[in-house]
C-alpha cells in the first residue's frame, strides 16, 4: 500500500480564482492511499517546498502528487525538493491544474471539477511509478555548426573563442552566405562585405575552427554529448593545399556560360570558378556538370595553366566521420520561387527583378560593377517601383502567410540609396504596412520618406505590363481608395524569404522539428528560443524564423552559449525515462526498430524464457538506453505491448485515463 501526499498550489489567484482549492483537498483525501493532502499559496516557494519535504519525512510518504502549473515549469523544482527529502525524484507526479485547467476555464464549479479529475488521474498514475535512476554519458568536446553564413560564422567564432573545437560545414564553395551578396546593410548603411569579410577571415584563421566548404551533412546518429556525423566533402577537383587562388584557371576556362549563382544568375561564370573575390577559402571548384573536361574528355586547359599544379580531375568525394557534443543549425534562407506570381512579369521582363538581384546590381563586385542599369538595355532607370510583400503575408496560397520581416527595411534602404546615388531617379514604394520596429529603424524609414523623397503609396500592385521599353504598373492606392497606373523603367520585388531547401532533410536527420513553413521550431517560443526540442541541437539565424543581421548575430551568440553549457561539462545525466522491452512477450517483429528515430533499437537472437517458463531461441528487440530519448514511438508501434516506456508505462497511462473516465 502506498502513502501518497497531495499538494495543491493556489499560484496566488492564478489557480485559486477558478479552482476551489479546499474542495480539491477534500476530494483527494477520500481517495484510498492518500495519506496527506494540503494546499499552499505558492508551492514553488521555499515555504511550499518545505511543506512538502516535512510531510514526506513526517508521514513517510512513498509517492507525491503536486497539483500546480505545467510540469515544464516546475517539475524539476519539485523533483529536486522530493529528492532532498529522501524520495526518489521519479516518484513525484505533477497534475497541471493551471495551464490545462484554471487558465482555460471561467466557471469555478467547472474548473474545480476538472482540477479534481486531473488530481485523481495523477494519483492513479503515481501508484504505478517506479523509482528510476539517471545514468551518465560522456560529452565530446567539439561542436558542429551547419551553415557558413553570418549566423554560423558568429556561432563558430564564439564557441572557438571560449576554447572549444568547432567544425563549420558549408554547402557552397565559400563561407559568407547571403550577407556576402548584400551591398549595404541597414540602418547604418555600412558595406556588407566590409563588416563580414573580417569575420570570415577570423573564423578561417582560428586554430579551434575547421571549415568544410562544398560539403554537406550525410548522416547523423547519436544523442546530446555524443552525436556522430558523416560529412560529405564534395570533390573540388582542385587541391586546396597547393592552390594559391591566383584565378588564372577561371580566366582561361573556355566554358563560361553557366549562370553565376552568386550574382543571382544575372551574369555567367566559368566552369572552374571562385565564388567571389573575398571567398574563404579562396580555392576554386570545378562545376563538373559544365566542365568540358568532365563532359567531353577534351580540354584540360586549367590543368595546363595552373602554376601550382593544383588541378586534380580524379579527386573524389570524401566522407568525414566526426563526433560532436552539440550541433547548431544555421542553414539560412533563400527567396521564394515567383513562378506563381505571373502578374509581376518576373522572368518575362528582364527589368522586373528581385531585391536580392537589386543588391547584386548595385554592388561594386556585381555584374554591372555597381552601376544601376537595366538588364534589358543597359540604360539607367529613371523611374523605379519597389513592391513590398511579394509573397509575404500572402493568404492566396501562392506565397507565405508570414511576414518576411526584413523587406520593409531593405526596401527603404534600396530606395534611399538609389535616390542618394541617382538623385534624378524617381522612386515609388508600394506597401501594405511599413513595419520598422528596431533600434534606429523607424528613423531610417522616415529619412527615406522625408529627406530622400521616396514616394510611399499604401496599396498593392495588381498587374505589371510591358509597354514598349518600359513597364506599366497598375496598383491600388488604399488611402485615396483609387486605382492608379504609373510608368516604370524597373520594378524591384521585395520577395518573401523561406528556409533553405535543406532544412527539411536536416530536420529528419536530426529529429529536430520544423513548422509548416519549414522553419526549425524552438523548444519554447519565449524561454528557449535558440534550443530545438531535440537535446543538444541549437538554432542560429533565419533557419528559425525571419530576422535581420543584428538579430541573427545576437541569436548566433546565444546559440554558442547554449553549446558551451554542454561542452563545459564532462558528463551529462541521461534521461531514465527510456523504453524497455519485455523479452518474454516480444515477438521480434521489430516495428519498434523501424520507427525509432534515434537508431536506439535493434533485433538480437536470444535465448529467452517464454510465457510457459520454457527456454526458446528467437529474435527480440534490444534497447540501447544511451541512445533512447524516451519519445515513446516504439511503444505505440509495438502490437503486443512488449515495449514500454519507463515513467510512462501503458499501465500508468491507462490508470490515468481510467481515473478520469
Amino acid at each position, binding site marked *: 500500500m502506498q502513502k501518497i501526499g497531495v499538494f495543491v498550489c493556489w499560484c496566488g489567484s492564478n489557480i485559486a480564482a477558478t479552482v476551489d482549492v479546499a474542495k480539491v483537498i477534500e476530494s483527494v483525501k477520500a481517495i484510498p492511499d492518500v495519506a496527506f493532502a494540503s494546499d499552499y499559496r505558492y508551492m514553488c516557494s521555499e515555504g511550499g517546498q518545505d511543506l512538502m519535504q516535512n510531510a514526506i519525512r513526517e508521514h513517510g510518504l512513498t509517492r507525491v502528487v503536486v497539483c500546480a502549473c505545467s510540469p515544464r515549469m516546475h517539475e524539476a523544482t519539485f523533483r529536486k525538493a522530493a529528492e532532498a527529502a529522501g524520495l526518489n525524484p521519479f516518484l513525484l507526479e505533477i497534475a497541471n491544474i493551471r495551464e490545462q485547467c484554471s487558465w482555460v476555464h471561467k466557471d469555478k464549479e467547472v474548473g474545480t471539477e476538472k482540477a479534481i479529475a486531473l488530481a485523481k488521474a495523477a494519483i492513479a498514475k503515481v501508484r504505478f511509478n517506479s523509482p528510476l535512476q539517471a545514468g551518465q554519458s560522456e560529452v565530446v568536446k567539439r561542436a558542429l555548426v551547419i551553415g557558413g553564413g553570418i549566423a554560423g560564422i558568429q556561432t563558430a567564432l564564439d564557441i572557438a573563442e571560449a576554447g572549444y573545437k568547432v567544425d563549420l560545414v558549408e554547402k557552397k564553395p565559400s563561407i559568407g552566405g547571403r550577407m556576402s551578396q548584400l551591398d549595404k546593410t541597414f540602418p547604418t548603411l555600412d558595406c556588407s562585405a566590409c563588416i563580414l569579410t573580417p569575420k570570415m577571415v577570423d573564423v578561417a584563421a582560428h586554430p579551434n575552427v575547421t571549415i568544410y566548404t562544398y560539403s554537406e551533412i550525410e548522416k547523423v546518429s547519436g544523442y546530446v554529448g555524443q552525436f556522430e556525423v558523416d560529412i560529405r566533402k564534395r570533390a573540388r577537383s582542385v587541391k586546396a593545399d597547393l592552390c594559391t587562388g591566383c584565378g588564372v584557371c577561371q580566366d582561361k576556362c573556355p566554358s563560361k556560360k553557366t549562370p553565376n549563382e552568386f550574382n543571382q544568375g544575372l551574369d555567367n561564370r566559368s566552369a572552374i570558378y571562385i565564388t567571389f573575390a573575398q571567398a574563404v577559402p579562396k580555392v576554386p571548384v570545378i562545376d563538373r556538370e559544365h566542365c568540358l573536361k568532365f563532359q567531353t574528355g577534351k580540354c584540360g586547359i586549367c590543368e595546363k595553366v595552373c602554376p601550382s599544379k593544383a588541378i586534380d580531375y580524379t579527386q573524389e568525394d570524401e566522407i568525414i566521420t566526426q563526433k560532436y557534443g552539440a550541433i547548431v543549425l544555421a542553414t539560412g534562407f533563400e527567396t521564394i520561387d515567383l513562378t506563381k506570381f505571373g502578374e509581376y512579369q518576373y522572368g518575362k521582363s528582364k527589368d522586373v527583378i528581385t531585391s536580392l538581384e537589386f543588391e547584386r546590381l548595385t554592388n561594386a563586385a556585381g555584374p554591372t560593377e555597381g552601376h544601376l542599369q537595366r538588364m534589358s538595355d543597359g540604360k539607367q532607370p529613371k523611374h523605379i517601383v519597389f513592391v513590398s510583400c511579394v509573397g509575404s503575408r500572402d493568404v492566396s496560397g501562392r506565397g507565405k502567410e508570414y511576414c518576411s520581416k526584413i523587406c520593409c527595411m531593405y526596401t527603404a534602404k534600396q530606395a534611399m540609396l538609389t535616390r542618394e546615388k541617382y538623385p534624378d531617379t524617381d522612386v515609388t514604394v508600394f506597401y501594405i504596412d511599413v513595419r520598422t520596429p528596431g533600434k534606429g529603424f523607424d528613423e531610417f524609414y522616415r529619412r527615406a520618406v522625408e529627406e530622400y523623397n521616396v514616394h510611399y503609396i499604401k496599396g498593392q500592385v495588381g498587374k505589371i505590363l510591358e509597354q514598349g521599353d518600359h513597364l506599366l504598373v497598375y496598383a491600388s492606392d488604399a488611402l485615396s481608395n483609387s486605382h492608379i497606373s504609373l510608368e516604370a523603367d524597373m520594378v524591384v520585388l521585395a520577395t518573401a524569404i523561406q528556409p533553405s531547401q535543406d532544412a527539411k*532533410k536536416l530536420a529528419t536527420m536530426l529529429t529536430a522539428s520544423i513548422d509548416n513553413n519549414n522553419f526549425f521550431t524552438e523548444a519554447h517560443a519565449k524561454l528557449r528560443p535558440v534550443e530545438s526540442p531535440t537535446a543538444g541541437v541549437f538554432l542560429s539565424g533565419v533557419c528559425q524564423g525571419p530576422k535581420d543581421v543584428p538579430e541573427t548575430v545576437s541569436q548566433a551568440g546565444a546559440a554558442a552559449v547554449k553549446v558551451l553549457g554542454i561542452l563545459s561539462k564532462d558528463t551529462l545525466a541521461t534521461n531514465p525515462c527510456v523504453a524497455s522491452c519485455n523479452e518474454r512477450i*516480444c*515477438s521480434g*517483429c521489430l516495428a519498434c526498430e523501424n520507427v525509432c528515430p534515434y537508431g536506439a533499437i535493434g533485433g538480437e537472437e536470444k535465448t529467452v524464457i517464454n*510465457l510457459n517458463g520454457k527456454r526458446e531461441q528467437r529474435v527480440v528487440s534490444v534497447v540501447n538506453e544511451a541512445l533512447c530519448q524516451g519519445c515513446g514511438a516504439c511503444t505505440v508501434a509495438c502490437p*503486443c*505491448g512488449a515495449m514500454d516506456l519507463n515513467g510512462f508505462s501503458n*499501465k500508468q497511462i*491507462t490508470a490515468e485515463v481510467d481515473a478520469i473516465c
Partner: protein
Amino acid sequence: MQKIAELIKKEAESLLKENKVTAVWAWQPGEFYYDNSPVCFTAPEQLDKLVYNEFCPSNLGKYLMAGSKKNETMAVFAKPCDTYGINQLIKDHRIKRELITVIGIPCSGMIDIKKIKNQGVKGIISVSVSGDDVIVTTAYGDKNFKKSEVLLAKCMSCKGSDYMIADKELGEKMEVKCQKLNPEDGVKKLEAMTSQERFAFWQQELSKCIRCNACRDICPACSCEQCIFDNQEAAVAGKASANTAEEQMFHIIRAYHVAGRCVGCGECARVCPQGIQLGLLNTKFAKDINEFYGKYQPGADDDSKAPLVDYKFDDVEPTISAKGVR
C-alpha cells in the same frame, strides 16, 4: 490435383529419408472428406496419411514458428497464396529462413463446402474434381456442381500462380478459372456510405463476433507471442463489454496491428464461424496505404519495410478533417 499429391508425397519422402529436414508440414484427412487439417510428419512411414486436394485451404506457415524457436529444420508445402504469409512471418522474425525449405505447389482453387451444403446437399462421402466439374458423392447419390461456382471467396480473388518464396517448385503452375472478384469493390461500397450508415454497418457486422479468436489464430500477420488483448500489463485486457458491439474495438485494433503486414490471404473471413466480413477492414487499410504511399504488397518479399513503419522525405502527410482522412 491428384498428380500433385503424388509429387508431394514423393518429395516429402525423400526429404525425410535423406534427413534433409526433421519435419515436413502438409495436410491430412480430417473427420470428413472436406476438412483436411495441417499435420507435421517426422518419419517417411507416416506419409500414407498425406493428402492434397481442393480442401486444403489453410496456410501451414504459422506452424513453423514453434520449430523455429527450437532451431529445427523443416519443410513446408505452400500454395502460391501461402507464400505471401510465409514471407511475412520471415520478415517478422517468427520463422528463421535458414531453417526452412519451402516447396511451392500449384493450386487451381479451393472449394467452399458451405456453398455446396447451402444447396441442400447432405451426407457427403467424397468429392471428385475434373476440370470445372465437381461430383459430390453423398449417401443419397451423386450431385454435380461447377467448380467455378463453388470456389472459396478468397480463391475468387486469387493473386496468381507465382510463388513469392520457394526453394523448389513441384508440377506445372495452375490458374484459378472463374469470374474474378476484386476485394476493393466491397470497400468502395463502404466508402460510398455516409459515416452514420457505415457505423451502423460495422455495429451490425461486428456485434456478431463471439471472440473465438479464430481470425487471430489463422492470421499470418497475427503472430505475437502474446496478443495485447491477453496482456494484463497492457491494461486493455479484461474490460467488461458495455455492449456486444464493443467487440469492434478488438477487430479495429487487430486491423491496425496488421496494417501494412496483412498479406490479404482472406483466411480471417474464411474461418470466421459468424461469417463476419473481416476482409473489408484489412482491404480498406491496404487500399489507403496503396493510395498514400504507392502500391505495396505485404509478403511479396521478406525484407522490405512496410510503408507505415518506413519514412521517406516525400511521404504524404495525410491530415484528418471533418470529411475524413485526406
